[in-house]
């Protein structure tokens, strides 16, 4: 299913989609305010971007350093070329410890690998412990946003599923009440789990340590009570030095939610006595993306989600309309690198306004890459990318006469046509927007009359 048709689904509930739009804009606004409170904000972005350029250009040696140092610290390091191998590695560690139930903190990477269904098929109970992720897990849905997994849901939806799963009072929609019910429920799971899985925000080559950031404290509750900690990390999450964390931690939470830092920023260097830490380093298409000159710097992403919060398309079409693990602008340049056919409509789900690039803390030229992907996709398969209205436009642009006639026709018809035609389902871009008042004459006509 294409992005436009799934976006249309989302827009059916107008009140909810309007709320979604406004709420994400509110988060974007918080990001603006807090970024402006730091005079060196732009310097930090440039620094972070430069550091990530260095990382992408020296990924081999940094990964090898990271591996050597992590091993020296008593951490087990595993390498996985793809999702299948990643899941096998995780499963084999669980088997070795005869573990039938795990707790997991937010990890977009394990979503990317579809680890949950893989483990569940093998009889292992997986409990997502981030509140938003637990909510969507109850509903058997994927997260719709990488930082705000349940942003597509209203508290009434959450109250209903909690009543069913956690026996909370029927109709009690108070966020505090619901959150504390989840706290009690998840505490039981934390206290029982023998193995905990987390993602990784940053891996430090110099020290072999890795950093996990949360506000809820769920990653730490899981790993410090369990005997075994498995950390799943994309190979691009490496940074050179410990002090580089200063740059990235200053940018991450400010860009993500407009707060100065996440409340817990844990640095794991070696296991607690008697315990184990495993790191799984995952490629899964990342080296392929690295080889694409135009698209490689999409790998600089630190997963803050700022580009989603600012994107006029994401805000109005919801995370699910993208059908990819990472939605929004950054997802629309990462996903075609994984499967260009499946995600062919995503680079078109953008107005190319450039707001995503403006807010990106590591200065990825997201909108330019969206444009580049459009070129690639159209070249590879002219029919694949174009919807009905695009096809009509391409016919008009190839004939100068048709272009002239269609222009005057359009100016007249925009006034005359009933909204039902402009907002016809065939015209996916007409939905939920108003067209400007058409000018009386074209620039060409005006120039003819007014030229000196």
């Amino acid at each position, binding site marked *: 299913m294409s992005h436009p048709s799934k976006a249309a689904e989302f827009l059916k509930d107008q009140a909810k989609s309007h709320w979604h739009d406004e709420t994400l804009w509110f988060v974007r606004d918080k990001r603006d305010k807090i970024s402006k409170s730091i005079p060196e904000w732009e310097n930090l972005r440039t620094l972070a971007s430069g550091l990530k350029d260095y990382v992408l250009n020296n990924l081999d040696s940094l990964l090898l350093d990271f591996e050597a140092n992590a091993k020296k610290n008593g951490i087990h390091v595993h390498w996985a070329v793809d999702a299948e191998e990643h899941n096998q590695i995780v499963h084999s560690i669980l088997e070795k410890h005869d573990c039938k139930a795990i707790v997991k903190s937010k990890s977009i990477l394990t979503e990317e690998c579809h680890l949950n269904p893989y483990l569940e098929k093998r009889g292992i109970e997986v409990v997502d412990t981030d509140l938003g992720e637990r909510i969507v897990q109850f509903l058997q849905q994927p997260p719709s946003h990488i930082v705000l997994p349940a942003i597509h849901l209203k508290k009434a939806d959450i109250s209903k599923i909690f009543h069913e799963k956690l026996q909370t009072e029927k109709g009690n929609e108070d966020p505090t009440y619901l959150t504390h019910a989840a706290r009690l429920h998840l505490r039981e799971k934390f206290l029982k789990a023998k193995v905990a899985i987390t993602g990784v925000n940053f891996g430090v080559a110099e020290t072999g340590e890795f950093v996990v950031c949360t*506000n809820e404290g769920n990653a730490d509750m899981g790993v410090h009570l369990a005997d075994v900690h498995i950390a799943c990390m994309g190979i691009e999450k490496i940074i050179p030095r410990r002090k580089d964390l200063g740059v990235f*931690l200053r940018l991450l939470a400010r860009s993500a939610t407009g707060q100065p830092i996440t409340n817990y920023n844990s640095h794991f*260097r070696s296991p607690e006595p008697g315990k184990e830490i495993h790191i799984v380093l995952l490629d899964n298409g990342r080296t*392929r993306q690295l080889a694409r000159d135009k698209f490689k710097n999409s790998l600089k992403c630190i997963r803050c989600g700022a580009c989603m919060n600012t994107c006029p398309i994401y805000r109005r079409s919801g995370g699910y309309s993208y059908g990819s693990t990472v939605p929004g602008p950054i997802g629309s340049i990462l996903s075609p690198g994984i499967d260009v056919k499946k995600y062919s409509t995503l680079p078109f789900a953008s107005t190319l306004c450039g707001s995503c690039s403006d807010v990106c803390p590591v200065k990825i030229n997201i909108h330019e890459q969206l444009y580049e992907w459009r070129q690639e996709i159209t070249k590879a398969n002219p029919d694949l990318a174009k919807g009905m209205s695009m096809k009509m436009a391409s016919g008009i642009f190839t004939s100068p006469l048709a272009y002239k006639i269609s222009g005057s026709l359009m100016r007249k018809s925009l006034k005359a046509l009933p909204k039902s035609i402009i907002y016809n389902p065939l015209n996916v871009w007409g939905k939920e927007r108003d067209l400007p008042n058409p000018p009386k004459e074209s620039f060409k006509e005006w120039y003819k009359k007014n030229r000196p």
Partner: protein
Amino acid sequence: MSSRDQIIQAIQKVKPDNQTLPEIPEFRVPEDLLATFILSIEGNKGQVVSKEDFSSWLKEKGYSKILSNSDRLEVSNLQILPSDPHELAELELAILDGQWASAENGAIWLDDTQLRLRAIPFITEHLVITIPESNILGNMHQAYDKIGAAHSSFGVFIAGPSKTADIEQSLVIGAHGAKSLTVVIV
């Protein structure tokens, strides 16, 4: 070929010319570090009390299950540190000494030396962290300068209580970890 070698080779095949690693310059820091730090902690939904007010604060709270690793505050009737963190499931208050703090965001650094058991600041219902005023630094760069060379098996920057906004973006304090953070300036 192993997966490791396969990944490394794929990277090396497209490796461009060498590039230098950017250096991190010094940035200006707030003038009044203590005032900025207090504002940051409060912004993160924590609270700050002075050393003088601490004992009356503690008395008022009336916690009975208290664990302290602090060398800076004197508290009586403490629990004994268990070897298994699961025994801390009912812990009401933990008191820990922070090493360094960053004024710009309220982040306080603690490592294994202070924690002894890594689970303590997360499993406890409420958390107190002490910090000497002279250990409050300007920003995260200064904090990493201080801790950069230390070999902490585990270390954490804590900046506030456990919180979430996953239900309709409404802020709720006390998701999984400590329901409150009280910073005592010593």
